[in-house]
C-alpha cells in the first residue's frame, strides 16, 4: 500500500502570523513548522503501513523553508518526500495549489491520499476536495477514524447531523480531524535517518505546468485589522462576581 500524506509548512503555528506589505502571508524568515493538523493523518498512515506493509510519502508545496515540514514527516517515519517550490507559486490560491499537488501526485499513483480537514493558516478546508476532483478520486471528508481493509477504505466521519460510517474502494482521498491518532514524537534515530531519505524537488516544467496553470485568480487589494473590543471589564472572582454576571444577564433582558 502506497499512502501519500499532504504536509503543509505553516508560519508560526502557535503564534499569530502576519501579512507583508504585499498583503501576502509572511513566510520567509517566519518561525514555521509542519502544520500540527497534518501530523494526525500522517501518524495514522504510518500505523497502517507498519501493520500491513507499504510506504508513506509526504507531499508538499511551499517555499524553500517548507523543507523543514517535509523533513519532520520523514523523521516521523515517512519513506520519501516531494516538495514543489517556485517563485511563481507565491500567493497561489487553492486552485493553483490543487493543480500543483495533483501533478505531483499523479505519477506516484498513491492508493490513498491523506490530508487534514483544514490548515492552521489558510483554513479554507477545500483544497483536498478540489484535489480529489482533479485526480478523479472519491473523497471522504471530516474522518475521525480510518482504516484500510484490503482494497477498501473504511472511515467514520462527522456530518452536520451526527456521524456516518462509510466505505469506498481505493484509490481514494480522506481528510482527517485530530481524532484519528495521537502523533508520535520523532525519535533521534528518526531525525538522523530522515537526512538520507530521498526528497524529490520537481520543477513546474517537470510537472507539466505552464504559466497559465499557476496564475492565482485572487489578489488581496487591501488589509485592515478586524475591529477590537473596547470597554470590557475584568474582575477577580469574589463574592460579587455572581451578582455582576446576573446583572449583565438582566441588562441583556435574558432573565
Amino acid at each position, binding site marked *: 500500500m502506497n499512502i501519500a500524506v499532504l504536509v503543509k509548512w505553516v508560519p508560526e503555528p502557535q503564534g499569530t502570523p502576519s*501579512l507583508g506589505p504585499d498583503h501576502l502571508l509572511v513566510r520567509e524568515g517566519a518561525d514555521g513548522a509542519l502544520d500540527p493538523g497534518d501530523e494526525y493523518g500522517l501518524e495514522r498512515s504510518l500505523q497502517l503501513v507498519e501493520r500491513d506493509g507499504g510506504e508513506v510519502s509526504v507531499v508538499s508545496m511551499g517555499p524553500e523553508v517548507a523543507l523543514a515540514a517535509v523533513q519532520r514527516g520523514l523523521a516521523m517515519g515517512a519513506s520519501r518526500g516531494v516538495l514543489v517550490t517556485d517563485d511563481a507559486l507565491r500567493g497561489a490560491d487553492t*486552485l493553483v495549489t490543487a493543480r500543483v499537488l495533483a501533478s505531483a501526485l499523479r505519477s506516484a499513483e498513491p492508493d490513498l491520499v491523506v490530508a487534514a480537514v483544514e490548515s492552521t493558516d489558510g483554513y479554507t478546508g477545500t483544497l483536498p476536495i478540489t484535489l480529489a476532483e482533479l485526480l478523479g478520486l472519491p473523497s471522504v471528508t471530516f474522518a475521525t477514524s480510518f482504516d484500510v481493509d484490503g482494497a477498501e477504505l473504511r472511515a467514520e466521519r462527522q456530518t452536520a447531523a451526527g456521524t456516518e460510517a462509510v466505505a*469506498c474502494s481505493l484509490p481514494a482521498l480522506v481528510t482527517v480531524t485530530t481524532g484519528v491518532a495521537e502523533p508520535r514524537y520523532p525519535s533521534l534515530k528518526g531525525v538522523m535517518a530522515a537526512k538520507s531519505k530521498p526528497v524529490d524537488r520537481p520543477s513546474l516544467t517537470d510537472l507539466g505546468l505552464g504559466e497559465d496553470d499557476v496564475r492565482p485568480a485572487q489578489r488581496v487589494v487591501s488589509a485592515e485589522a478586524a475591529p477590537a*473590543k473596547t470597554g470590557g471589564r*475584568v474582575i477577580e472572582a469574589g463574592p460579587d462576581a455572581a451578582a455582576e*454576571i446576573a446583572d449583565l444577564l438582566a441588562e441583556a433582558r435574558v432573565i
Partner: protein
Amino acid sequence: MTRVWIWADVAPDGVAPSAFELATKARAVGGDVGAVALGPGASEAVEALGDHGATLVYTSDDERLVEPTSRVAAHTLAALVAEHAPDVVLFPSSYRGRDVAGRLQGVTGSTLMANAVDLPSADRARAEILGGTTIVEVALEGPRPHLVMMRPRSFEPDAVGGTAEAVAVDVVDPPGGSSEVRVLERTETAASGPSLDGAKVVLAGGRGLGGPDGFRLLEELAAAIGDTAIGASRAAVDAGWVPYAMQIGQTGATVKPEVYLAAGISGALQHAVGMKGSRRIVAITKDPEAPILRLADLGVVGDLFHVLPAVTEEVRRRTGR
C-alpha cells in the same frame, strides 16, 4: 446585469438558515437571484427561498445528489453553471458547502474564495483571515462564476415575501460514475434543548470543565436562565466529553447570541472566530492572561467550579426558577 446564485443546503427536515442569509446578500449585490437546491427536501424549499429573494430555484429531490462525496451534486451544478453562466455562486461554510464548492472549483477552473464575510460586488470579496484578526479585500479574477464561501451569520436574513419559480434539474453523473462511497451506518446526535443557532444565550465549556461532568454546571445554569443552548470548545469535543455538534469556532458553529458565556475556555483564535460576534460576552477563566478576557465585556478570573454554581443560585433567586 450581475447574476448571483446561491447554494442552498437542503434536507428533508428543512432548508439551512445559511440559505436565507446568502439569498439576502445576493439580492443586495444585483439582479436576479438563482438558488440551487439539490437533494431530498429541495422542492419543499422553493417557497421559503422565494420568500427570501430567490427568483428562480433549480431543484431536484433525487437521492443520488446527497451521496457522501458530493460529486454528483457538484457535476450537476457544473452543468447548470455552464448553461446559465452566473457571475458568482455563494456557498455556506458547511460540510456540503465545502464539498460541493471544492469539487466545482476543480470542474470549472474558477477561483474559490473561502471565509468570506462580505461581497461588495461580483468580483470583490471581503474575508476574515489569520483567525479573524485581519480582514482583507480580495479581487476575484479568472473564469466566472467566482465561487465564494461565506462564514455563517455574516448577514441577517431578511424575508421580502417574494415568490420563486421552480426549475426542475436533471441529475448529471460525474465521469466514472457515482456513489463510490457507501454509507454503512448513520448516527444522528440527539439534539437536547434549544439549538445553538437560535438560542438567546449560549453557555460554552472548555478544557477547564475537566470532564463531561463539568458540563452539568452549565446545564443547571441553562435551566435557570431558559432559552439557553450549550456549546463547547474543540478541546472539550476532542476529549470526547460532548458531541461535535456542540463545537463552536472555525471548524464548528458560529453563534451570535445576546449573551455568550465561556467557562474554562482560553479563547484561541480558532474559537474566537465562532463567538466574537456575540452581543455580550462573559468569560470565566483561571488564567488572567487568557485571550478570551480581551474579548469579554465581563471577565471573571477565578475557579469556575465556584463561580458557576454561585451564578446559578443568583439567577434562580432572581427568576424564581
